[in-house]
């Protein structure tokens, strides 16, 4: 029996078409994988089903009945529960309190609620301690609380958005048992993933999205292999667009990363022994599904995150013990994934942001030479074609592309030897993407060594001299973009060996 039917869903956002007639059919009593690259429209489609978005066109049907959700509560009432990647739990509440919040009886008898939550958990084989406070729990346990929240509200369709991204392998296996026990009760689970092995292990059928459209509908997972999955996700290897022609030979070493290990606050090794080098004028691309350690790797190289082991060297000088600002002084530039916050201060104006790296050199005494600061900002604006109406207004009004050009420009202004660019084109429009890519290419030909971390395979193939794939905190494979196929790289990103 068909539990969920999404039919011809269109959803447009300003400048982006997230879903272009996507469809999905999920049978009751099954675990259904939804696959696709970042930006394929998976999360948007799921948010339509969860009542967060209203589709521009298309129909949502549950058990054959058409639904018109206007808010998440409508979807919850209709039996759709969604577990987001960022958990929505209150750390100081107990498991039982989190589960019951918003759906509790008028009088909450603590032990009774805890017993009910324990019973519910046992029914689906979820291990949990209802009386413990959530902050004490591992990520896997927290995820189970989120699942319990949905079950408490009697969800018949449970959407899990990349649920294994935060889990240890054992926790992931446990999750697989939970989803199958839910399916055994006749419920449906929609499992968003990039990883082939877990799709094969946990799911019955798979639907693949690409560019907002459904490219494969309800395939049996037994028919799926790494090559087929990668091909469906990233598409046929179309003619490689404007592959960068190297203008200089790879020169001396400018960045050396050796056996770098970074642990997160939960003690997980999010970067687990990464080594690579970058030469003068070289662009080293790092591909990978989000959450495989790229972000902490970039922060650690920049000096914003402390490392457990390993070393970072800039032009043969070990900078492992140095603060971020000292690394900057030695020629490291960083364009972080969080443009606003880490990179730019949104409440300050363009001039103030433009001089962030150089303010100490502007003016001799304790005062900042505003004239110099302004002329620097003006020259950045001209060089990098940043469109601002006024120099003295807060950044908040600038578009993403202008913000990014300002940040990139500022980082490149004092001629670094190494640039770490993390997701530098994400969220930009076509022209914005091209402008940033052109800057990167130009800088490389001027001899800057660049680490380009991206989730956009097209970009990585076009720009990189070497292509590394990160998986679960490690560099799992290295490819030559001239000879590798996208299917190969896609398979490595999904964890195939």
């Amino acid at each position, binding site marked *: 029996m068909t539990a969920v039917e999404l039919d011809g869903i269109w959803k447009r*956002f300003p400048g*982006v078409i*997230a879903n272009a007639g996507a469809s999905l059919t999920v049978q009751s009593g099954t675990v259904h994988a939804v696959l696709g690259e*970042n*930006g394929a*429209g*998976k*999360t*948007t489609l799921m*948010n339509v089903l969860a009542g*967060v*978005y*209203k589709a521009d066109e298309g129909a949502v049907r549950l058990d054959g009945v058409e639904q018109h959700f*206007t*808010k*998440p509560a409508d979807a919850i009432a209709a039996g759709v529960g969604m577990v987001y990647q960022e958990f929505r739990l209150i750390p100081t509440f107990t498991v039982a309190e989190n589960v019951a919040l918003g759906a509790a009886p008028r009088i909450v008898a603590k032990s009774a609620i805890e017993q009910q939550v324990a019973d519910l958990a046992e029914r689906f084989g979820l291990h949990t301690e209802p009386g413990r406070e959530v902050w004490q729990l591992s990520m896997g346990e927290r995820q189970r609380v989120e699942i319990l929240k949905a079950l408490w509200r009697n969800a018949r369709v449970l959407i899990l958005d990349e649920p294994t991204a935060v889990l240890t392998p054992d926790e992931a296996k446990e999750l697989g048992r939970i989803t199958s026990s839910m399916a055994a009760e006749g419920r449906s689970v929609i499992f968003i993933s990039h990883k082939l092995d877990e799709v094969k292990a946990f799911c019955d059928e798979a639907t693949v999205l690409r560019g907002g459209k459904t490219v494969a509908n309800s395939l049996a997972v037994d028919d799926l292999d790494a090559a087929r999955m990668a091909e469906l996700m990233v598409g046929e290897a179309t003619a490689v667009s404007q592959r960068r022609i190297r203008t200089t030979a790879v020169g001396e070493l400018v960045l050396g990363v050796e056996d770098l290990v970074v642990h997160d606050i939960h003690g997980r090794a999010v970067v687990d022994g990464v080594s690579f080098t970058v030469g003068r004028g070289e662009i080293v691309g790092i591909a990978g599904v989000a959450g495989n350690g790229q972000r902490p790797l970039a922060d650690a190289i*920049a000096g*914003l995150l402390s490392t457990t082991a390993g070393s970072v060297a800039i032009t043969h000088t070990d900078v492992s013990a140095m*603060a*971020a*600002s*000292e690394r*900057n002084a030695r020629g490291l530039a*960083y364009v972080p994934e*969080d443009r606003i*916050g*880490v*990179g*730019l*201060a*949104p*409440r*300050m104006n363009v001039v*103030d942001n433009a*001089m*962030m*790296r150089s*303010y*100490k050199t502007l*003016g001799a005494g*304790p*005062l*900042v030479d*505003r004239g110099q600061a302004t002329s620097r900002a003006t020259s950045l604006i001209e060089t990098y074609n940043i469109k601002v109406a006024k120099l003295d*207004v*807060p950044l*908040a*009004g600038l578009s993403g592309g202008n913000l990014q050009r300002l940040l990139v420009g500022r980082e490149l202004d004092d001629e670094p030897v190494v640039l770490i660019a993390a997701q530098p084109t994400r*969220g930009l429009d076509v022209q914005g993407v091209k402008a940033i890519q052109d800057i990167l290419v130009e800088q490389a030909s001027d001899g800057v060594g660049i680490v380009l971390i991206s989730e956009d395979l097209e970009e990585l193939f076009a720009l990189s001299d070497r292509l590394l794939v990160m998986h679960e905190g490690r560099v799992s494979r290295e490819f030559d973009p001239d000879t590798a196929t996208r299917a190969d790289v896609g398979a490595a990103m999904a964890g195939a060996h």
Partner: protein
Amino acid sequence: MFGLRLVRRENPLPGGQVFAFMVGLIVALALGAVLLLLTDHDPIEIYSKMADSSLGSPQAWSTTLTQAVPLGLAGLAVAVAGSMGLWNIGAEGQIIAGAIAGTWIARLGPDLAGPVLIPLMLLAAVVGGGLLALGPALARAHLGVNEIITTLMLNEVAIRIVRYLVNGPWKDPTAVGFPVAPELPEQAALPTLFERANIGVLIAAAVVVVFGFFAARSKWGYELRVAGSSAQAAEYIGISLRTKILTVLVLSGAIAGLAGGLRLGSSSRIVEGIAEGWGFAGIIVAALALMRPSGVAVVAVAFGALRVGGTAIKGQGVPASIADIIQAFVLMGALGAAVFTTYSLARRAPGSENASMVEADA
């Protein structure tokens, strides 16, 4: 739900705070008029009397400016901390600490000449105010203890210290009735500037101007603003948040302490109520000035006039507290009006309610 919703403006409305302040002032005067009418007073008569006594003559201006000195310095103290996103609610206590320290110096060297004694007293006041802020600063910088509550609590401690001193060790044995400290030596009084105003006005103005310039133009002030705007960005460019918190809070206390020291130059002795609520009023001043020194100066003079006017109408049977009421209403009116400088009204677009939540994958 309502068809209309508030949308954050890309850039705050230019001149928005002036608009908000004017709205606040109008609201406050209107509400004050209602109160006066309810208590059988003629608001126009009362308001014109207030304006006349505070702004109507050079003498009126001199009293207004004298009131503006502690208001402005307390406001600046709050604004200094506020520019880094910290709250110094302890200006009231730091004013007292400054006055205590100044008095202490005067008691140690009652025979020193004025030009020696006055700078020493002011220096001691600065140190005293800074010392009272040191504890909250250390606790905040090293242990992350909320500075709002610690500075607030120390106000009450400082009030009790001065109460203890004037009732005990510093009690004037010759005074009858209310316990007070003995008068300060004559040469401790600040030289007169004009009418009733003394050079405290110049000192305070100089501090506000110099600090305002320094905060806006120096590398140190720049670092402060970066730290206040984004802790991560500050770390990236090598600014130590801990040092910044410590220096800013102590500096803030020192500025408030100076206000206490300058008060000694205008009143002949330290009394229990030496701070007169200026520390709390300073928070209103700073909030209305959006933590900018230039704004602090303007608001301080306006509020100084209100206070002078409030005292002047006591003879009419109107409590001086009308000035406090109007001050509070100005702030509340301005807080309400500020919504329209940072937000604009827009029609609610269907389905857009939660649009910002899921943009990442769109």
